[in-house]
């Protein structure tokens, strides 16, 4: 009884607490952004960073170059990737009413992988992979293009199927199966490829936040922005879908058009990030749960901005760990997100016991 009455906080108070939390998250984002700029193979003092960021003169020309050309693009990529994957995952979890869904469930990520594999492994046999690596600028464009095409192809397929299949669980399973098919195709390709090509492909699958220079970042930014805006526009539909499709429809929400927009938004978010940074797992599943626990709500009007901030923070933090501050090594970001994030999620679930309870 006591526990119950303690949990009951009045609505007004709750709204107040939520804006406080959102403010805290925004502050946290700023802190981790600056930390991310400070820490790396070379530690740059906070004062210098502020000077460089505010466009002032600094004596350390090398530091300025590192900050402007490497660390800022990298941190911005981390923010975009983290928030995009998280918001994509949130939409999939609500849409499929499944706590284990993530941005990759529709097979979009594996579609991107297939595109990259085709370019790296098949094209490699003709022109040799060195050609792509030597033309590094053009090469990365080719990879981004291949990944985008791959995820777009899977997206189109899923959209076509979703027009036919009305049941979300069926769609979920079909998405997983398409993912499996693409992974199998990649495996066959790998089987017939040279070890060097496989190595290049493997490195791509580790994920990287460092491969997006400033002059290309804006493309990623625009796509993520469009996907994010669609997601925010879907807040009301997602809220209705929490009660299931029938209730959503009975409350005046067009489920059929919502599902198309939700799929488009998630594909843009997950597909673009995978194209630019490689497949980064885990964030998309974990962050929505963390945000729900923190904000104590399932109302997407609050949850989407919260997830956006939380995803960015988590990715920045993971990137700091991946940089191994003070050393010249960089660990694969995809491994770090799982390594850092999983214990956090386990802790939250055990402490709050409400992961499963978010869905029926």
């Amino acid at each position, binding site marked *: 009884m006591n526990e119950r009455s303690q949990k009951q*906080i009045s609505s007004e108070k709750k709204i107040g607490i939520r804006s406080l939390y959102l403010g805290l998250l925004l502050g946290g984002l700023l802190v981790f952004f600056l930390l991310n700029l400070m820490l790396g193979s070379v530690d740059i003092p906070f004062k210098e960073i502020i000077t460089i960021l505010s466009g002032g003169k600094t004596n350390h020309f090398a530091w300025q170059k590192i900050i402007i050309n490497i660390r800022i693009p990298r941190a911005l990529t981390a923010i975009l990737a983290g928030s995009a994957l998280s918001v994509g995952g949130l939409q999939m979890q609500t849409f499929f009413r499944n706590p284990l869904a993530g941005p990759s469930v529709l097979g979009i990520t594996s579609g991107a992988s297939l595109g990259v594999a085709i370019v790296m492994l098949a094209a490699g046999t003709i022109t040799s992979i060195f050609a792509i690596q030597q033309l590094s600028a053009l090469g990365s464009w080719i990879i981004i293009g291949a990944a985008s095409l791959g995820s777009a192809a899977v997206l189109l397929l899923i959209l076509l199927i979703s027009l036919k299949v009305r049941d979300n669980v069926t769609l979920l399973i079909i998405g997983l199966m398409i993912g499996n098919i693409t992974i199998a195709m990649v495996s066959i390709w790998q089987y017939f490829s040279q070890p060097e090509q496989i190595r290049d492909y493997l490195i791509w699958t580790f994920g990287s936040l460092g491969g997006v220079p400033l002059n290309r970042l804006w493309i990623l930014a625009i796509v993520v922005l469009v996907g994010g805006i669609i997601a925010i526009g879907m807040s*009301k539909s997602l809220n209705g879908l929490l009660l299931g499709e029938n*209730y959503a429809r009975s409350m005046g929400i067009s489920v059929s058009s919502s599902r198309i927009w939700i799929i488009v938004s998630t594909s843009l978010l997950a597909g673009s990030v995978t194209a630019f940074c490689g497949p980064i797992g885990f964030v998309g599943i974990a962050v929505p749960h963390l945000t729900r626990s923190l904000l104590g709500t399932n109302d997407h009007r609050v949850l989407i901005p919260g997830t956006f901030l939380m995803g960015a923070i988590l990715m920045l933090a993971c990137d700091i760990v991946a940089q191994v501050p003070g050393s010249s090594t960089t660990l694969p970001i995809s491994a770090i997100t799982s390594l850092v994030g999983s214990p956090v999620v386990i802790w939250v679930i055990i402490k709050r016991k409400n992961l499963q309870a978010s869905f029926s």
Partner: protein
Amino acid sequence: MIKQTIISTHDLEIGFPTRGARKSKKVVASEINVALQKGQVVCLLGPNGSGKSTLIRTLSGLHSPLKGSIFLSGKNLSQFSIRQTARKISTVLTDRVTIGNLSVYELVSFGRSPYTGWFGSLTPKDNEIIEWAIESTGIKPFIDRDVMHLSDGERQKVMIARALAQDTSSILLDEPTAHLDLPNRVEIIRLLRKLAHETKKGILLSTHELDLALKAADNLWLINMEGEVFTGTPEDLVLDGTFESVFEQDSFDFDRTTGSFTLHQPTKEIIYLFGDEVAVFWTRRALEREGYRVSQSNGTSLQIEAVHRNGRFEWTLVNDHEEFICTSVGALISRVQKIRQSVDMEG
């Protein structure tokens, strides 16, 4: 009261269309001509699998009719958009809603979706209606609780409050009393009656609670296993035998004199029972449970007079040669059994 039809149907046929492995369409019920009036509580009854849920879902626009038409305030339902329909009809379904991290207030506020803008922001007027829905359903004490921590009865009231917040002219409920204990069932039905009369909404609910439906409904819609739909006031349907015929297959006996179901097949002799009303009612139940048939007209060898005298109940049992006075139903029953045994032994 002037009758005002909210929802009506014309030769409606409900069921499932041809799709996938199903070679031909499956018709659940056809030639349905029903009307839901303003301020009325209508109970939809029928054996399991007779299509109660399908009818409710079809009327609320969640399921397409196979044939015929549905009219909503005189206009064909198919002309309404999903959003417009949601402003006219709200539903409480059997789909279980057990979402965590969502307060009761938030859930009720989702009912405003057909009126809110693209982002779902609530205006002061929306909040007023939500407050009213919360007041009318009596869920104020737990509006800040998590939906996950509600009991079944509380959750059902919250879902009704959400339907009220939708501010529709009718509410269709699919088995709102399933999974609830008796006090909660009665409370929900009472709440729905109150809402129908106070707000003049038309309320349709499907239920398995036959006796509750007979008492609570202004009108009954009965579906039998053949997919035929009968409508009328509960009393008329009982008196003309329709009620019994619909539930024929369920092999239990509907007693027209009491409006309830006999659980026990009478196997033993007839007993003449008379006396005070309350005492007779409960004595009759006990005797029927034991398998005796009870007659209210004289002429049997075994007679019981049940009376309320000096603040307590007393039963006088008379047979051909003896007379016994009992002070409890239990004592009466064992005495009746003894007499019967001795008769059996003599015979």
